[in-house]
Structure formats: C-alpha cells, structure tokens
C-alpha cells in the first residue's frame, strides 16, 4: 500500500505564490463595498494613531529636554576659605550619581546677571552680594532631588536649589496624557480589526462553495487561508496610504511654522526626518498587522471544514 506523500513540497512554488496574490486582489474587487468600508476604517484609525504618535513623540522630546535642563545650584557659604571650597568641590565631584559639575565664582555670577537683566546690576560690582556657586547635574534627572539633599548635608553649603515640585508635575501630566492616548489608540485599533474581520467573513461566505471544493480536492488549510490573509494585508496597506500622506504633510507644515520660533529655545521639535519616516513605517506596519490579524480571526472560525 502506498505511503502518504506528505513532503509534496514544503517550499511554496512560485506559481502558487502568484496565484495567492492574484486571488487576493481579485477578491478585493469582488467585494468592493466592504473593501471600501474596511479601508476607510483603517484610514480613520491610522490618521488618529499617526497624529497621536507625532504628538506623543514630541511631548517625549520636550520632557527629555526639560529633564536634561534640571540642575542643582549649590551656593557656597561665605565663611568657606579657598581650601574648604576645594574640599567641597572634590566631595561633590566624587558623589555617585553626579554626571556634570561646573564651578562659577561670584564675579562670574554677577556678569551673568548683568547680561540677563541689564546694566543696573553693575552697581553691585562695588560690593558683590552673590556667592560662589557649583552647578551640578544628576546622571539620572529623576534622582536630582536625592542628589540635592545629599549635597545639602555637606559643610559650607549655604543653600542647595533645584526646580522642586514643577518638574514632578510636568512628568505627571505627560504620563497621564500618554496613558489616555494609548487607551484611545487601542480602542481604535480594535474597531479596525473588527471591521476587517467582518469584511473577510463576507468574502469567505461568498466563496464558501469554492473553499469546500478546494478542501475536497486536497488543498491544505494554509493554501485556503493564505489568499484571505493577503487580502487582509492589502486592506491594511490601502488603509495606511492616506494616513501616511496626512502625517507627512501635517508635520511638514507644522514644522515649518513652529520650528523657526523655537530657535535657540530650550525646547525643540523633533526633526522632520527621521520622525516622519518612522511614524509612516509604524502606520504601514500597524495597517498590515491589523489587516492580517483581522482576517486571521475570521478565517480561523470558518475553515474548520
């Protein structure tokens, strides 16, 4: 008796691949209304996801910029002599968690003040009320408060200052908006997957007799399944075209308007490239994934023949 020939061909033949692509594209045209419906759903979803992504990534950039700007200002007590000052500087330098440190004399500080607020402050050149200062940056900005408190305990520090409270509030706000954004995006993705699986389901119902015959003449499950998965993929790709165009144009214009105004400021927008390419790639990937996932869900239910 013959042995089952299961190793017919593990690698799919090129003609088969061509057939699958042909079938999947034909099916898009045959169910054109459902195709339009799903593509629209994916389009709306991905436009929102894309805009959210642009906002989120820029907010993240702002947060990082602000974070990196946080520094500790250590005022050195006037009673400290040169040796004591040096000892303090050495101690701060050796403190773990300190990444950067600059020393600035009270004369330097006054010059800065004059530069920032005008010549009126030149009056103080006669008797400078300022103190020598050490500027310290924490390696991890989140640890700023801890580093500041440690330095405060050292001898000959008059005062230790950092933007206490404000930074924490900003990060809180950013985290909340990030979470809200993620929940919204997940909801939208879910809707798009649902619509795509419905489209594929209708396609499958329309082709039930065909599937039945395919199975009868010995088509494997994957042979039956692949055209539907490809169809889902096309829906995703078609649905990502408009969002990519929207995101690109939108950011191009926003960048053109806003970027010049932020010149020299602490906070900067992310550059057009590579951000827009990253977001576009992300949208395409999400489109393809929800397309394939959506059709996989409905094919799985229908192909238990």
């Amino acid at each position, binding site marked *: 008796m013959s042995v089952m020939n299961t190793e017919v061909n593990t690698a799919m033949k090129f003609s088969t691949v061509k057939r699958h692509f042909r079938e999947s594209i034909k099916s898009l045209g045959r169910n054109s209304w459902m195709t339009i419906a799903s593509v629209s759903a994916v389009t709306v979803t991905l436009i929102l996801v894309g805009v959210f992504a642009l906002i989120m990534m820029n907010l993240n950039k702002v947060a990082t910029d602000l974070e990196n700007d946080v520094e500790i200002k250590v005022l050195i007590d006037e009673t400290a002599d040169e040796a004591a000052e040096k000892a303090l500087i050495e101690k701060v330098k050796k403190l773990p968690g300190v990444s950067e440190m600059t020393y600035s004399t009270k004369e330097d500080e006054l010059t800065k003040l004059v530069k920032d607020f005008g010549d009126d402050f030149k009056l103080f050149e006669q008797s400078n009320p300022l103190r020598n200062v050490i500027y310290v940056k924490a390696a991890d900005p989140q640890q700023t408060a801890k580093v500041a408190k440690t330095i405060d305990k050292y001898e000959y520090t008059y005062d230790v200052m950092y933007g206490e409270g404000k930074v924490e509030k900003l990060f809180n706000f950013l985290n909340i908006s990030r979470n809200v954004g993620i929940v919204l995006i997940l909801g939208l993705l879910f809707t798009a997957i649902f619509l795509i699986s419905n489209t594929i389901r209708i396609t499958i119902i329309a082709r039930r007799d065909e599937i039945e*015959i395919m199975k009868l003449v010995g088509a494997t499950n994957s042979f039956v399944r692949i055209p539907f998965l490809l169809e889902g993929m096309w829906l995703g790709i078609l649905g990502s075209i408009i969002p990519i165009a929207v995101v690109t144009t939108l950011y191009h214009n926003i960048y053109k308007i806003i970027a010049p105004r932020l010149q020299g400021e602490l906070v900067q927008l992310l550059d057009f490239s590579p951000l827009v390419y990253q977001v576009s790639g992300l949208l395409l990937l999400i489109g393809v994934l929800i397309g394939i996932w959506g059709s996989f869900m409905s094919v799985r239910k229908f192909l238990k023949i």
Partner: protein
Amino acid sequence: MIEMKNVTKKYPNGVVATNGISVNIKQGEFVYVVGPSGAGKSTFIKLMYREEKATSGQIIVNGIDLATLKNKKVPFLRRQLGVVFQDFKLLPRLNVYENVAFALEVIEEKPDEIRRRVMEVLELVGLKHKARMFPNELSGGEQQRVSIARSIVNVPKVVIADEPTGNLDPETSWEIMNLFEEINARGTTIVMATHNREIVNTIRRRVIAIEGGLIVRDEHGGEYGYEI
C-alpha cells in the same frame, strides 16, 4: 483498498448513522451502495474521504488509518481520492478547463503538467471542444462529465460517487455510467451510492445494501432489490 471494521458513526444530535459496519473493498472493484434514504449511505460514503470522522471502529483507505489521521493530513488523503456529487459542485465563475485545472492548482502541480493532464481527461470525457464554456452553458450530463474529469485528473486510486446520476435523465445517466465503467476498466476502484435501480440491475456489480446503519446485504453481481 478500503477496509472498515465495526465502524459506528453517532452524530452529536444523537442520530446513529452507521452502527458497526464492516466491509472490505479491493483495488479495482466497482461497488454500488444502495438503500433507502436516511439509511446511512451518505455517511458511509463521507466516512471514506474523511468528511465525517467515525465515532468508533477502524477505517483504512489506501493504507491510511483514518482514525489516527490528523486533521492537518486529511488533504493528503483527499489527493488520493476522487469525489463526484449529485449536484456536480462546479465553480460557476470558472470555465470547464479551469474547473478541472483547479484540482491540480490547489495541489500545486506544475503549470505545463496541469495543461497536459487537463486536456487528457477532457478528451476522455469527450468535452475537449467545450473547454472554454462555462458550467451554465452546459447540460446536466456535461456538467457531471466535467466533475468526473475533475475527480480523476490527479489519477486517484478510488473514485467515490454520491448519487452521480441523481439529477440526470435516464439516457444521460447511461452515458455517465459508461464513463464510470471506462474509468473502472483502467483499474480505478469505484464506490457509488445510487438510487438507480435500472442501472444496478443492468450493469451487474457488487452491491452493498445499507439499512438502519447496518449492511444487510453484500453480494457480487447483485440486484438493486428495493421496490420503488
């Protein structure tokens, strides 16, 4: 070729379609399966190509044990069988040629091999000149010929037919039967469920009669044996 031992099929709704059937069909045989409607004929046929899975008992088709056959491997069983139905099951969007070629496409046969084999079977069933026509342009008999061509295009060892003449007029039925005889003469085993008394009584072959889920008669060169 086809061996059943004590095969029982109980459907989830409690209906017992076959109740311990044992039968042995040899390579090259021509077997009629007869019996009243609802006697279990269709189930008996469906069990062979694993459309239905037996509740208990053993079925071996062409050396494959269907009880232990994994669902994933069923396609490879089907490739060794040809199946013909009462309602032809042709794809209306495809023409005659494409309908037959479909059976080879899904098993990923080479394109030039597909062309050669399809033309060969269309010649055999006498429809070479109608290769470009669509199913709705053909008579019932011609459609059944296409479906027979499709069932034998991958050179199966067994052709299983479920009332292939059920929708055809007597004259056309005879033509279809001649075709089956020709296929059988080439060494292909044929298992055919039928209600056609005239055919069974004229072309005398082995007859298996099923009633109430049991084989009540199994004789070579037998008669249809039921009054209509």
